[in-house]
């Protein structure tokens, strides 16, 4: 899973959001490191929607413009959980191997 995809799913895990909401949320949870561009975001949303990992939650008209809110589907939630567990396991291994090394240095 690409990081952008992972971050989008993570943003939606907290509840439904619209496009710009996802961009600002991803920026916040990645401490400013991941800055999604509109083209990337909508290519990813379209792909995720085609794979039924996300769906449209509701639509609103704001400033005479359509605003669409997306949310995770159960399948999307499962996939994100599996990916998060995988990343956590990897990170755990990395940290446990680094610990004795850093310990001996200090």
């Amino acid at each position, binding site marked *: 899973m690409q990081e952008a995809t992972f971050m989008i799913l993570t943003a939606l895990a907290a509840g439904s959001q619209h496009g*710009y909401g996802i*961009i600002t949320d991803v920026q916040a949870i990645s401490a400013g490191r991941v800055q999604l561009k509109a*083209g990337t975001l909508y290519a990813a949303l379209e792909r995720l929607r085609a794979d039924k990992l996300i769906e449209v939650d509701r639509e609103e008209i*704001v400033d005479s413009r359509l605003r669409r809110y997306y949310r995770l589907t159960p399948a999307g939630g499962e996939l994100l959980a599996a990916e998060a567990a995988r990343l956590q396991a990897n990170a755990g291994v990395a940290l446990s191997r680094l610990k004795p090394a850093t310990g001996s240095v200090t």
Partner: protein
Amino acid sequence: MSDSAHLERRYRRLLACYPRAFRYEHEQEILAVLMAGADEDQQRPRLGETANLIKHALRMRLGLSRGGIMINERTFPIRVDRPSRTLMTAFGASRKAPRVTMSPSIVDVRMGWAFHATIPREAVASARSLNRGELRGPFRLSVLRGVNYWRGTALVNGAGTGLVEITLNRSKWVWLGPLRAPMRRLIVSAEDQSGLVAALNPTTPHSPGSDDPSL
């Protein structure tokens, strides 16, 4: 204010790079995102933003990304009998399979270069199976094949059977080869006549007698 109008127009021009179906689905949303992310006095799209939009639009157009495919779309092939197919091949109208593609928001009807219509779903007032005997005016001639147009009605007919009549609640401009014409009613020969009617009228229960193959 005029800055933002300029900027919006420039962004809109950029979004024209995207395939039509994708634009129909997402143009407003993407514009909103781009405008929300713009600086107050920004007049031109940022370089990185521009490159990113063009890259993704190209990928969709080249079929490298599935973004160009409409969501939850369903395709209904247009029925084309053998003589018509031969004729269409001769005229180069069959490069792509003639079909009706439907997404939750649009109905897209295409027969090669000869006919192309993109109709918002909400503009479809009704759809029903049509017996060939019900055709009126010049359409009466049962030998008519291919794309015919008469007084706001387009007949996109590859076989003369499986006809589905789609009535719009307003005129939509459609492409008849190189020409644009207003269309209120479309009659198309479908492989799956009852399936197409049912898909266009999601709330109307499908009547079992409507797909009589002898029509």
